[in-house]
């Protein structure tokens, strides 16, 4: 009775097996790697100093490197979840009608996509990188408060679950209902449809209880982020090793310090604002109702947090460019001090621009104008950075490794994202572009461009330190190229559509936009495929990638750029391999 599918599958497998054998007899060696690969562990596998084994180690660790890895894994999971939603949105937008899902589902998608990406992907990944590398870069023994560090991380999974309870509740409800069990609460939790900005009055009138859980989740994630930020600040200020004075703190630590400073002032405010919204929703207060503070109050509070938040995730990305780009240009970072100053300047100025998100709300035109000027001014320190990066590369000895390709691509996409942003800061232009796809295109050039791309670059650059192995560099370069190509195709189309007047946050659109939307979707799928290649490369190389024996993976000694984290790595390798005289193989 078992039908054609299974038989076909068996036949297919046999065919591949036979075909492979046939090609092998013809000498197609690529299918059976001559070097035999490197299986994990292996016969002579000598176990080196181990911490607590297995799951317990990960649940109880207070080691900054382990916590860093936990952050990175968590962030990756969130990215894949939010990325799935991005792919779903791009699928819905392939046709002008809302014919795959309902418009309500689309609303849920962009809301949860935005929240997942910003709070549970971007921030945690940079905190993970910071946790792993800041102590190494600063020659500190560990983070200043290891236990608080662990607590800060472990608040995130429940926060994510609270914020995103809609989908797991759906799935659980489905499974349980097939076996006849019915739990009502599972049916009423739907993904919120408020947008990540949670504007009043919609967010207060919505009856969906998932909005309350989301607010609690955001609150929890805010506490977690603040704890992490305090830890970074104290670590940089008080835990630096003997040889590390303020004069030679590296650029990535500087950006993490600035970011943490911004977190300290932004996230607690979000926490309070969110609690007030919870009260409005459940206890009859009127903070954001017309009778009380009014809906505009929410917008002010939200964006007083929200704009700094975008710099919270942007600054570490610039720190990574400033770290990685010079290494593959064979030159010192041009104008180090000015980059540090511009980073600090952005940190401060980021609190003075929030109302540029509110130009169309009817706030006082004089207030509006002042926010326009500050917003234009903040472009200057960003431009300083770009100038310094370009000058660093100028006349340098460029080596196009995967991290370098991504860094150069990041500078490029950041220029587009930044310049389109300057236009939005101009009131007359914003009045036209506000709430169009132009805005979505603009911020994705930064968020997917420099931010996500520099995370990828960092993963390629430091991979050997974290895993002790090397990845497939050709695949990495291909992935870098795919991502860099996908970003302008996807988000450039959005810029054009927005300029033509297409509003954002709609599942359907006039038919004349169909072609541009399809181009955007194809670009998004290219980025998606790239992400899967990255995942494969990371996981598979962790298992069977060639072991790194020489810590100078990138030939940094030659140009005198063998920085502290690599020196630490060299010591580790010496310890690991000295004992057995370098004889032990996998």
């Amino acid at each position, binding site marked *: 009775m078992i039908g*054609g*599918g*299974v038989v076909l599958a068996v036949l297919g497998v046999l065919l591949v097996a036979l075909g*492979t054998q046939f090609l092998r007899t013809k000498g197609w060696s690529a299918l059976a790697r001559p070097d035999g690969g490197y*299986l*994990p562990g292996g016969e002579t596998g000598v176990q080196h100093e181990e911490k607590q084994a297995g799951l317990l180690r990960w649940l109880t660790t207070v080691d900054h490197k382990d916590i860093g890895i936990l952050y990175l894994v968590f962030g990756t999971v969130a990215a894949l979840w939010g990325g799935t939603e991005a792919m779903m949105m791009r*699928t819905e937008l392939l046709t002008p009608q809302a014919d795959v899902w309902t418009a309500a589902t689309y609303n849920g998608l962009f809301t949860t996509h935005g929240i997942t990406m910003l709070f549970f992907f971007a921030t945690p990944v940079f905190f993970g990188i910071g946790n792993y590398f800041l102590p190494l870069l600063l020659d500190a023994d560990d983070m200043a408060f290891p236990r608080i560090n662990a607590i800060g991380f472990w608040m995130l999974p429940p926060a994510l679950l609270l914020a995103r309870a809609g989908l797991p509740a759906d799935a659980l409800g489905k499974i349980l209902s097939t076996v006849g069990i019915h739990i009502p609460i599972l049916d009423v939790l739907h993904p919120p449809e408020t947008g990540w900005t949670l504007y009043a009055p919609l967010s207060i009138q919505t009856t969906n209880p998932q909005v309350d859980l989301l607010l609690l989740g955001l609150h929890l994630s805010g506490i977690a982020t603040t704890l992490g930020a305090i830890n970074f600040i104290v670590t940089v200020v008080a835990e630096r090793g003997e040889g590390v004075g303020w004069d030679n703190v590296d650029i990535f630590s500087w950006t993490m310090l600035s970011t943490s400073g911004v977190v300290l002032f932004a996230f607690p405010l979000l926490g309070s604002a969110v609690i007030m919204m919870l009260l409005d929703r459940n206890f009859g207060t009127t903070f954001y109702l017309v009778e009380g503070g009014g809906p505009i109050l929410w917008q002010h509070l939200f964006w007083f947090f929200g704009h700094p938040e975008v710099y919270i995730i942007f600054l570490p990305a610039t720190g990574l460019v400033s770290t990685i780009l010079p290494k593959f240009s064979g030159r010192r970072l041009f104008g180090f001090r000015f980059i540090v100053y511009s980073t600090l300047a952005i940190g401060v100025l980021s609190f003075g621009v929030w109302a540029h998100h509110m130009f169309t709300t009817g706030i006082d035109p004089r207030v509006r104008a002042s926010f326009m000027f500050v917003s234009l001014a903040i472009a200057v320190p960003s431009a300083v950075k770009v100038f310094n990066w370009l000058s660093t590369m100028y006349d340098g000895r460029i080596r196009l490794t995967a991290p370098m390709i991504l860094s150069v691509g990041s500078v490029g996409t950041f220029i587009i994202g930044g310049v389109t942003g300057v236009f939005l800061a101009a009131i007359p232009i914003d009045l036209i572009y506000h709430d169009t796809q132009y805005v979505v295109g603009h911020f994705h050039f930064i968020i997917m461009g420099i931010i996500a791309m520099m995370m990828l670059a960092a993963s390629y650059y430091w991979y050997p330190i974290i895993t002790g192995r090397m990845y497939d560099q050709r695949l990495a370069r291909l992935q870098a190229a795919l991502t860099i190509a996908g970003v302008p195709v996807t988000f450039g189309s959005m810029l054009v559509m927005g300029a033509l007047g297409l509003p954002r946050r709609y599942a359907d659109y006039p038919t004349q936009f169909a072609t541009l939307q399809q181009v955007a979707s194809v670009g998004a799928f290219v980025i998606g495929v790239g992400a899967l290649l990255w995942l494969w490369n990371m*996981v598979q190389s962790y*298992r069977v990638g060639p072991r790194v024996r020489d810590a100078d993976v990138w030939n940094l000694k030659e140009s005198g750029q063998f920085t502290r984290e690599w020196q630490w790595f060299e010591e580790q390798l010496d310890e690991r391999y000295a004992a057995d005289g370098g004889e032990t193989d996998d």
Partner: protein
Amino acid sequence: MHRALRAVAGGVVGTLVLGFFLLVLDTQARGALSVAGVVARFLGVPGRPVLAVALFVALAVVGWPALFVAVEEYLPFGPDPAARGVVFAAVIGIVFVVVGRGAISGPILVLYVGFAMLAHLAYGFALGSVYGRLAR
């Protein structure tokens, strides 16, 4: 551990992964397609989703691993069993997607193909890597 046992252990882990991905597809699709229906068409028992899912689990826990053990040596990209498992499952995945498709069409086809393939690739990876790991 005996090869067959190792393979079944891999099959169990793989099935959990496969099930997870297919469940995500089912919930993310929000009723626009039914994975149980796809599985039923793939197994040639359309209209009987419960039976189909039970059979499918048995197949993924025992059937595919058995076939994998039989053909492992002949598959490309060895000697890493995980890489071989991915190739192995990719073939099954393609057949699954084509035969199980039924009337699914339009934009959601993209999501269906992408996720069903991903589910199978992850299955093959889990199957192969557990199988290989237990060898030590």
